[in-house]
């Protein structure tokens, strides 16, 4: 006696696949239904552009948080992107295949370290170094940028390597045959051909950086403040939600959901740009 036939298997697999999509839809629906009414009642401009966030007196302006998220993310890019791309070029063009086989999985292992561990290292090691050498409270925008820059390395490196290796051998051979050195070939031919993949890797890293919560809460200090310098403490959009959710009720809670809506929209835009960039790469091949 067979419990399920061919048709049954097909159906079960389809339901499983749909459950992933429907949970995404449900999450989106939930966030938007909780957050959107607040945004419109409070006023889009008041919510997005006002400087004051003080839930106890009914002020819900998230502009400082938006700016902080932008600065933290850009800073993480400044730290992470050059390191990541340089690492990817070295591993794919210069390193011997054995080194590549050892180093690439090791870097990918970085992605498996829980973010709370990065945060802990940031608090215990990085913040005191910044405080003692540069001043300020240590828990700062700079600490956030460095920690996030390291956290996005695996994303940037592994996608960049994949796109550099996807450049056909014939491109490189053609260039080398014309007398170009390895470096000339790399930066004038290979990198140019792999450009859209590298851009995609940076944008996915950006998405990871802007969405990171735990490590940022631990190292960035969380004051609601538009930063004047890299040593100022900042609070990102994600940190705002996570910090205050446990105590929030009424308007305050809705305002946090609305913060989630903004974050959701930003990440959707970034991911769409990345997937367009990846599609371009595939189309070129």
């Amino acid at each position: 006696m067979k419990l399920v036939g061919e048709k049954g298997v097909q159906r079960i697999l389809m339901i499983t696949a749909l459950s992933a999509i429907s949970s995404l839809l449900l999450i989106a629906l939930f966030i938007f239904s909780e957050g959107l009414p607040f945004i419109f009642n409070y006023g889009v401009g008041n919510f997005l552009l006002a400087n004051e966030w003080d839930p106890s007196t009914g002020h819900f302006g998230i502009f400082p948080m938006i700016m902080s998220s932008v600065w933290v993310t850009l800073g993480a890019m400044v730290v992470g992107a050059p390191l990541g791309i340089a690492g990817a070029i070295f591993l794919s063009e210069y390193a011997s295949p054995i080194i590549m086989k050892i180093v690439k999985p090791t870097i990918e292992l970085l992605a498996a370290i829980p973010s709370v561990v990065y945060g802990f290292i940031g608090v215990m090691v990085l913040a005191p170094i910044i405080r003692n050498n540069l001043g300020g409270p240590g828990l700062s925008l700079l600490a956030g940028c460095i920690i996030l820059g390291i956290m996005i390395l695996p994303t940037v490196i592994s996608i960049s390597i994949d796109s550099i290796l996807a450049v056909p051998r014939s491109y490189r051979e053609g260039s080398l045959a014309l007398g170009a050195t390895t470096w000339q070939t790399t930066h004038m031919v290979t990198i140019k051909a792999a450009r859209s993949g590298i851009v995609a890797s940076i944008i996915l890293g950006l998405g990871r950086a802007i969405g990171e919560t735990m490590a940022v809460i631990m190292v960035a200090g969380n004051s609601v403040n538009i930063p004047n310098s890299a040593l100022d403490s900042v609070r990102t959009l994600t940190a705002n939600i996570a910090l205050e959710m446990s105590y929030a009720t009424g308007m305050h809670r809705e305002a946090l959901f609305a913060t989630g809506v903004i974050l959701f929209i930003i990440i959707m835009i970034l991911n769409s740009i990345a997937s367009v960039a990846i599609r371009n790469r595939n189309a070129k091949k």
Partner: protein
Amino acid sequence: MFKRVFMLGMFLLAGIYMVGCGRGKTSITLAGSTAFQPFAEKLAEQFMDKNPNVNVTVQGGGSAVGIQSASSGAAQIGMADLVTLPEEAKGLTSTVVAKDGIAIVVNPKNKINNLTTDQARDIFNGKIVNWKEVGGDDVPITVVSREAGSGTRTSFEQILTNITLKKDALIQDSNGTIRETVANDVNSVGYLSHGLINEKIKAIKIDDVECTSEMIIAGQYKLVRPIFLLVKGEMVGEVKNFIDYILSVEGQKTIKDNGLLPAK
């Protein structure tokens, strides 16, 4: 066939649940203040040992949630650690079951030992920004506070009065992380529940009164907040028994042994 196995399984499960719950068991739910939550859990355990027919569940959520769930009936008892209860709690029967001192803490390397109420207020407001203004070294003050909505922060600001927290104050989301931040940063000042003071941080005197259990009980130390249990309507049945147990000599001893102060 498949259906029959499934049905049988469901009956079995239902049976297990019924046995597990026991018939005629009364259940009480507490929700609210995270500061009182661990104490409530301990008291609930002791109470259940004595009264096996009662099941007490304790949930956190913060003081605001405590007030809300007591008024909506989601929990029989709400817990709140605020100095003054807000409007929404006016219709609830409130009982003070414990008191908690809030200590202003600095790094042990800081030579400041005393602040007046005014100095403390000015530091948190951002009017005093350097330790030398209150008799310390010439270094900037790093203010560490709790997130908006926290019961500790609300009480702290209500007692000191007229506090508009300075914009660049660091925000940490628990007593524990405040302690870590102050322990790590020589220039910082924060505040936390007095039961959580340890050797890594230094509690300072407020208006020359030390933050100790004795001073708090004697009513000398200023920064004290009551912990309320809130019940909708009259206290009856097991809810009353449980609150009476907390107020009994034994219950108050549990509270004291674990770092809070008895109500009386």
